[in-house]
């Protein structure tokens, strides 16, 4: 009776199969901001992967003759050099590798744990649900900085620890979101239909619950990656993150801030890269949310 009803009654069954994903994809393609963000992100990823090898400089080799050279198009250092004479272009891209890697890996870790934990708790419900969510509450109560410092003290400084620490915190959010969604999904008739068909709980979770959660999860992932990159920057800024000669955008911003008056390029280039990346992920996340949210499927 609404516009949707009128449209679906007027059209007969379309010739080609059209899944919800392909619908979402066509909606996303019409969102210019999101598509632009996706393209910029793609270019960034390519740059970060292949740029350092093509620049002709090593990211960790100091050059005492060219300390803090300003950026120039002709002088060989496009972004200038840092206070140890290392090529800033190479280091920015290399740092980007680390930042993106931390962002993506930590998010994937939290994704796998969070989705598994949340979907199981939500689907089984009752006592199991209560126990599992109380564990989440307890972990929430641990102060994040305390956890990081504790891990550093126990295991020494290590990149892996940052992944673990960030992942260990982030999956809690994911688990809560997924559990909430699962509780809603569980009420839907197709889940009961699956039980009538004789499916076991594990299989219902894998075949019916998780695929229907993916829309929400994908949105959350694109919004989590920039958040994780920021957390890493913050840790590095405090000196708890990535160690020399390895670097990340967070480390570079922190070091650049010290020399801001004399050599602003040391701050500007990594900061711009960081900001552009965060922007792009946020725009992409917004676009995905609009494309995947079933409530916005009017006019079809």
């Amino acid at each position: 009776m609404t516009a949707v009803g009128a449209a679906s009654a007027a059209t007969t069954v379309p010739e080609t199969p059209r899944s919800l994903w392909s619908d979402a994809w066509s909606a996303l393609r019409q969102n210019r901001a999101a598509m632009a963000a996706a393209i910029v992100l793609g270019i960034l990823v390519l740059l970060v992967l292949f740029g350092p090898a093509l620049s002709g400089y090593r990211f960790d080799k100091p050059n005492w003759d060219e300390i803090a050279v300003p950026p120039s198009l002709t002088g060989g250092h496009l972004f200038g050099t840092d206070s140890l004479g290392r090529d800033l272009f190479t280091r920015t891209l290399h740092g980007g590798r680390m930042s993106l890697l931390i962002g993506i890996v930590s998010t994937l870790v939290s994704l796998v744990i969070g989705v598994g934990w949340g979907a199981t708790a939500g689907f089984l419900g009752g006592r199991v649900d209560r126990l599992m969510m109380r564990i989440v509450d307890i972990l929430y109560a641990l102060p994040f900085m305390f956890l990081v410092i504790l891990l550093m003290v126990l295991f020494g400084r290590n990149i892996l620890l940052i992944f673990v620490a960030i992942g260990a915190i982030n999956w809690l959010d994911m688990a809560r979101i997924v559990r909430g969604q699962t509780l809603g999904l569980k009420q839907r008739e197709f889940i009961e239909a699956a039980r009538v068909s004789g499916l076991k709980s594990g299989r219902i979770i894998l075949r019916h619950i998780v695929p229907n959660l993916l829309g929400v999860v994908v949105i959350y992932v694109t919004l989590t990656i920039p958040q994780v990159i920021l957390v890493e920057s913050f840790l590095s800024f405090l000196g708890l993150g990535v160690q020399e000669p390895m670097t990340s955008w967070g480390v570079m911003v922190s070091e650049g801030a010290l020399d801001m008056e004399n050599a602003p390029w040391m701050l500007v280039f990594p900061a711009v890269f960081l900001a552009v990346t965060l922007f792009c992920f946020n725009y992409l996340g917004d676009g995905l949310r609009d494309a995947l949210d079933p409530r916005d499927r009017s006019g079809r």
Partner: protein
Amino acid sequence: MSATPLAMLAPALLDVRGLSVTFATRDGPVHAVKDLSFHIAPGEVLGIVGESGSGKTQAAMAVLGLMADNGRVTGSIRFEGDELVGMRDSFIGAIRGARIAMVFQDPMTSLNPYLTIGAQMGLVLKRHRGLRGYAAKAECVQLLDAVHITDPASRLRMYPHELSGGMRQRVMIATALLCRPALLIADEPTTALDVTVQAQILALMAELRVSFGTAIILITHDLGVAAGTCDRLIVMKDGVCLEQGPIDDCFHQPKTAYARELLAAVPRLDAEPIRARPAIAEPVIRVDDLAMHYPVAQPGFFAKPKILRALDGVSLELRPGETLGVVGESGSGKSTLARAVLRLVRPTHGTVCLLGRELSELPENEVRESRRDMQLVFQDPLAALDPRMTVGEIIAEPLQVFESSFSDKEVTARVAEAMAQVGLDPEWRNRYPHQFSGGQCQRVGIARALILKPKLLVCDEAVSALDVTVQAQIVSLLLELQARLGLALIFISHDLAVVRRLSHRVMVMYLGKVMEMADAEELYRAPKHPYTRALMAAVPIPDPRLEKTRVKALVKGEVPSPLAPPGGCAFRTRCEYAVGQCGSEEPGLVEVGTARVACWRVGEI
């Protein structure tokens, strides 16, 4: 009825000419209403009937000036001499609510849950009539009284959730009438209500129309409802008005093939031969004294949970090829019965025996083996299908559980066979549920249920969400499949008329208990329980002559909360025959002829 000659003389209150409503969508423009012209005189009741997507609601929305952003209205709508199309929103706002009022389908979603009834009614009075304080309150009380709400003054302090569904709809009607509108638009006002309550609301609207002199546009999918209430009728399909005229002509001399088809599809209480029971055979399922009680937590830390007796002492037996119709209003426990019979919930008491195998005590993983013999068809056809899977995957799913040795080729062949069986083109197996219509989705659901060749099929309101013509097709399909496969069917519905065509026997339930169980022929010819009679009286007959002269014994009140059912006979609070004994002792089922009835006074009435 008496309004018709008057209406002919009076000038039109609303005159709609060449109305078109178009929505701009991603797939191009959708024409929801095409070139619709009609008029309505003061005090007249105009029915607009049509199936979903016919544009009947959009036509009314256009009159109210309520359009989605992508909608465009063209043509002319003159109301009391003013042109509404193209009028500024602020002017339409003054007319809407004051001169034209609206009553929606679902009273719960149209009332603000955070405001008391009195506050919501007060808002209307303040906006349109400038009334406040005592004057406003007095006006509200007067109108609540007019819609027969008892103790109106104290109801004003209540919130919507504290009222029953029928009461909420009465409040909605009272609110709509606050400004004494000249025109009331009622969009499916009784669709969300139980049949007995529907009959009460329709009677109320007929009464108010006389006392307030309001013209009514009644939008409905139910021809029976239209037959009893309307003076004139518009039949719409795909946005086009196919038929328009006095109600008697539309029903008795329909001009278009579609109107005839629509009329033929409506299930009727008073037509069609009833099916004879199949020969005696070993029963497929035997249910004995089944009960399902849920503890319901009460507010307060030390409060004891109350026991919700969703199902109490139900016994039944079903032969191959036999259909049992289960009828009851909301809260009657019919869905719980379906879930307990299928062992989706573990019954509190009683036994379920499927093909000689006792299921009620088995653990879940052993029940699973019996799932291939019993299947369920759901109410909402689209919601019962996983939106991320193709139709072929959905239908194949039970096979993958029970026939894991099947090769891909065998699975595809079986899916194709199942799809053909329910009238779907096997070529469509790669499409997704949202690409199909409601009726097609229900066919997918039936194909999935039948792919394992079960012996028992339970249909829980399986046709209630469908349009009448589609409903008739699905019922025909079920009849055909039953004849071919020898299925035992449990067919659950709130509507006695729908059940009639399929059932060999009918069970009438109320608040979790069986009131009457009889052969269909017997039950429809001579209902014995007062509740069965009340249900029959409440079902509207799609024949204006019969419907308008029928003397209806309307049952009073609404279904009580299952958490606090009346003691003794559950129906006694609404029963016109109730005596002292009904309150003190619960009647058991006694044999009366071929029927079994739970009523103390069955011999006398």
